[in-house]
């Protein structure tokens, strides 16, 4: 039966080519616009570490004595609290996050000095976030403890400085210190850059050092997130009244999560009773909750998404109108089919098959327009331009949405068509 309906639908579409083209175009434009923005949303609001994110948590407390009644804790913490919490080793894994800018030279390479962002962290960073290595590995807990002069570099930097060769064991000069390269990453681009508190889609840092060493080699160049009082030595923040260190923990089951929450709360309460804090507010957000709290997806992208769906709605109305016109125009034909014994359900099904076929054609056009739209998005000067592409789920979604939309648009016209009174139509013939 489906084959027959399909044949009827094809004949009907061929009969009035202009109307068919109009309908397919309208569906294609609507699908193209909404799938473009939906794909951008899908990528920007995606999980940067699928499979791991559920066990990763970001710890926050409020060391700022000038904000005793703050409802939300600070984005990052002071060095003292961060070291206390990290040193307690209450989580399965834990990593501290500190940023600074530093001058980088490879003594053996002719590439002129670069100014790069340096991530200073701790050994668990790599296994915890599943960071892939091309050559070598991360550093050990011993390296952390001994302030080892070791560095892990990105694939990008390795290509730039060493032409992509295995550079493990070579020397990299950061500021005025020489560091041993112990690891080279594979291309790694978590989006958004979840472990930072600034919530955007920039690339991970090109050089990563143990926190203990980083603080020494780049002393005087650390930037605070905020300070509640003037630091005594700008750029040296270990004892400063400033927030600048992030703490991530990995907690493998629910019991550990609640235990850590308790631990964090107790720590803040203890610090408050010691007079170091004025606020006991803490948060332990999971990775996805953290991203949600930061509001990483840009407002403009959300707005575009709304626009695109309003647009799709208009295309839907348009298609309903045109399908109604098309089906009712064939009242005579429908009358004959009804008189010859086709049931209402059969007419209804036939009409929906035709609508679905239109949707499929519109979907093909919509897919092409989506590709064009995404190409345009990639040309925008945004951090996330290079991430934007149509993955398989969104490719399938394009067709699913196109067919669903047009079948939905076909319901009302099909219902009207199947209620055509056969006798009346036959008389008119």
């Amino acid at each position, binding site marked *: 039966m489906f084959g027959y309906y399909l044949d009827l639908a094809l004949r009907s579409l061929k009969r009035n080519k202009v109307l068919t083209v*109009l309908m397919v175009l309208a569906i294609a434009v609507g699908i193209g616009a909404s799938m473009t923005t939906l794909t951008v949303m899908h990528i920007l609001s995606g999980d940067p570490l699928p499979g791991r994110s559920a066990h990763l948590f970001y710890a926050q407390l409020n060391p700022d004595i000038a904000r005793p009644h703050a409802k939300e804790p600070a984005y990052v913490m002071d060095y003292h609290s961060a070291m206390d919490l990290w040193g307690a080793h209450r989580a399965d894994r834990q990593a501290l996050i500190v940023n600074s800018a530093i*001058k980088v030279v490879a003594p053996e390479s002719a590439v002129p000095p670069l100014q790069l962002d340096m991530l200073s962290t701790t050994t668990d960073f790599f296994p915890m976030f599943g960071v892939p290595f091309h050559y070598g590995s991360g550093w050990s807990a011993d390296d952390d403890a001994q302030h080892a002069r070791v560095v892990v570099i990105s694939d990008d930097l390795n290509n730039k400085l060493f032409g992509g060769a295995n550079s493990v064991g070579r020397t990299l000069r950061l*500021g005025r210190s020489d560091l041993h390269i112990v690891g080279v990453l594979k291309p790694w681009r978590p989006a958004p850059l979840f472990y930072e508190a600034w919530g955007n889609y920039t690339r991970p840092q090109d050089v990563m050092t143990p926190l203990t060493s980083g603080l020494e080699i780049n002393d005087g160049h650390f930037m605070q997130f905020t300070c509640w009082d003037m630091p005594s030595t700008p750029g040296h923040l270990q004892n400063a009244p400033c927030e600048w260190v992030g703490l991530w923990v990995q907690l493998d089951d629910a019991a550990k999560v609640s235990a850590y929450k308790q631990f964090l709360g107790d720590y803040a309460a203890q610090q408050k009773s010691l007079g170091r804090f004025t606020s006991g507010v803490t948060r332990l957000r999971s990775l996805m909750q953290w991203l949600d709290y930061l509001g990483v997806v840009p*407002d403009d992208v959300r*707005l575009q998404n709304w626009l695109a769906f309003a*647009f799709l709605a*208009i*295309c839907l109305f348009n298609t309903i109108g045109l399908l109604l*016109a098309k089906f009712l*125009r064939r009242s005579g034909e429908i009358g004959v089919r009804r008189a010859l014994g086709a049931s209402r359900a059969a007419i209804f099904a036939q009409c929906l098959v035709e609508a679905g076929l239109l949707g499929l054609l519109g979907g093909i056009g919509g897919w092409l327009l989506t590709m064009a739209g995404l190409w345009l998005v990639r040309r925008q000067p945004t951090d996330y331009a290079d991430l934007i592409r149509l993955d398989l789920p969104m490719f399938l979604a394009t067709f699913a949405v196109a067919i669903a939309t047009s079948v939905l648009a076909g319901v009302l016209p099909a219902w009207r068509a199947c209620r055509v009174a056969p006798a009346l139509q036959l008389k008119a013939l």
Partner: protein
Amino acid sequence: MELRPILSTLRRHKTTAWLLILEIALTCAIVCNAVFLIGQRLQRMDLPSGIAEHELVQIQLGHVGKNVDAKAQTEADLAALRQIAGVRQVAVANQLPFSFGSDSNGSLMLDPRQQQKTAQVAEFMGGPGLLPTLGAQLVAGRDFQPGEYVDFDAAVQALHDGDARGLPQEIILTRGLAKRLWPGQDALGKTVYFGNNLPFRVIGVVASLARPKQLEQGVQYSTVLPISMTAADGSSYILRTSPQERGAVLKAAVAKLKQLDPNRVVLVKRTYDAARREYFADDRAMAGILVGVIVALLTVTALGIVGLASFWVGQRRRTIGVRRALGATRGDILRYFQTENFLLASFGIALGMVLAYGLNLFLMLHYELPRLPGIYLPVGALVLWGIGQLAVLGPALRASNVPPVVATRSV
């Protein structure tokens, strides 16, 4: 033109008519709001910065460790940059209006006992010659005198030691900020406070100087402090030249700085126009997308009207033939379809206005937008009427060409 026959015909095609009305209404609502959003973006991109935008180039160097002789180095750099052909003035600046990068802000108060800040203001710092190099216009008072400048490091030290004497005592404000602080009064000689204990006396007012970022805090709420920065403090060299020579000057300046010390990292080298363009790139992109949406929407709606009108014309061929046979002229038939479309568009627009208002309320709630000015509604209405008439013209002309003889044939 008699409206009754049209209305009664429409009543017999209720569903189709309603679909068209809804489509027009939605289009009207979205187009009004999209045009409004475009206006907002254009207005933002057009904000005056108060500086000689087309005459400035900016070079920022990466710091190379803490340099004890950063001050001497900066002086030497400035002297060398002044030598470049085409350079009129050179200065150091910690930030520029409408540009990305780090920026300095402070909480300004009118009274040291205040609990809440009066305004969050941008703090421009640099050194001698900053205002003339930027091209900011003094409208009252004077620029800083050489003796009034304090080195950045000394100021930080003084701030930390709580020694107010080590800090500068003077400040220059924008006219916009002065009006906000003392409406209708002369700002010169008045005192403002940063935080709760640092007083500054207003000695000058500039016509305009926009802040780098956080525009929502007040685009023109900027101050200038007599604090000398060095290239090691993350500041930039600002060179003023003529618009035609910017490219050449930028190239020569970078070459000169590299020649003075080949090991330096140049972080930023650009004309101010490029900096400003980059700052507003998102707005430009969004405005472009919105224009695309409007065009596509109007096209789809117009196509819908063409489709439906064609269908109606086809369906009523017989009726049209009869009317023609009974003496209706071609013009009558043409006008019939035009009026019908006008009626449908009017219903759609009326509904669309309500929707546009609702959509605007929704946007105001979620995106910090102002209220939709009334002017957008009649403009939207005119556009939709126009599109409707244009779209229906083809089918209506075809209808007017239906020969009266059709009436005598069966289908």
